[in-house]
């Protein structure tokens, strides 16, 4: 019972202080899981990051599930996940309540009108870093043709063209890219 509480509390803190999403939570997770409680070794922690990049879902939730399963099986995974999302539920619901109550105020309208282009920029910036990761071997920009993954460039162009012209469900585009790209990378490179 004690262990469940500890798990829940640890991931509650990870959920509470992980502002900025994704990799911002990594040092927090490492502190709680590796340094403080010794639930995972450093090597296993790196594995969790690798697996998180290969599977769907936020890294904090993935870590919660992985650690929870290792320590007390499925109940552990569920308890850790609940701990992880509880701070978000409380804080985001509070903000949502105020947003819908006050969003018609002139000043709030002003704030929001500043936020909107900023959010577009942040999404563009995240997209750029994924493009770097997909096109260049180590995610580092370079003009040398040997450093560029032309299969990825071709795949990207084909997907983008399809999305702009036919407006398909993006999930099918991603699955298609996974299938075609998987065959190319497995057999041709």
């Amino acid at each position, binding site marked *: 019972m004690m262990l469940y509480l500890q798990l829940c509390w640890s991931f509650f803190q990870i959920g*509470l*202080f*992980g*502002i*900025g*999403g*994704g990799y911002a939570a990594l040092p927090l997770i490492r502190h709680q899981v590796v340094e403080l409680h010794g639930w995972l070794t450093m090597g296993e922690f790196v*594995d969790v990051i690798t697996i998180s*990049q*290969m599977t*769907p*879902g*936020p*890294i*904090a939730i993935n870590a919660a*599930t*992985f650690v929870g399963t290792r320590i007390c099986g499925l109940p552990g995974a569920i308890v850790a996940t609940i701990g992880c999302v509880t*701070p*978000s*539920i409380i804080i*985001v*619901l509070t903000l*949502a309540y105020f947003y*819908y109550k006050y969003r018609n105020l*002139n*000043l709030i309208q*002003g*704030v*929001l*009108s*500043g*936020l*909107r*282009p*900023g*959010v*577009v*920029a942040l*999404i*563009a*910036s*995240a997209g750029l*870093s*994924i493009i770097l990761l*997909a096109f260049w071997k180590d995610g580092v920009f370079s003009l040398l043709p040997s450093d560029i993954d032309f299969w*990825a460039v071709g*795949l*990207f162009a084909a*997907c983008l063209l399809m999305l*702009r012209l036919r407006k398909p469900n*993006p*999930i099918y585009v*991603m*699955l298609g*890219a*996974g299938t075609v*790209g*998987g*065959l190319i*990378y497995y057999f041709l490179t």
Partner: protein
Amino acid sequence: MNETKDLKFYLKLFSSTFTLSAFTFGGGYVIIPLMRKKFVEQYGWIEEEEMLDLTAIAQSSPGAMAVNAAILIGYRLAGVPGALLTVLATVLPPLITLTVISCFYTAFRDSRAVSAVMKGMQAGVAAVIADVVVTMTQAVARERSVMGWLILFGAFFASTLLDVNIVLIIFCCGVLGAARTLWQRRRKGRA
């Protein structure tokens, strides 16, 4: 929202959030464009601008962005029960996948076939984000506001090249927007 919130509605909300979460590789910024496509373009449940506001809230709150965005969409469409439903739908796919994978994770990690498919999917994900960025930039362009463009390029520059903290960037964008409104109000008062 005129839609009657019957069982069918909740099922649709749950299943669409569940699928989005199940196919979202690579973090919060991937799920936002997908949510926008589904709930704004396809279902028409949420307005374009509102989606951007919700994104800003999701980004500046603690926790995983995908979870935060799901809470906001659930709350917007069906109140607190809706929020709990969408959180469940967002958390279940990674919970299931990771539980299965943690049983044989070394084999999964070292599989050449798995990493080949993931590499291919990465190009697809990049294309989906690029597509959404183009559409969203067109929306900013339609407003014909110099401030909008300045914020767009300034925030992009700050986050890409200067690596400024995202929460700080969002804060500054909000302050700039508020300052513009105050300035316009003062000018109007004088005229």
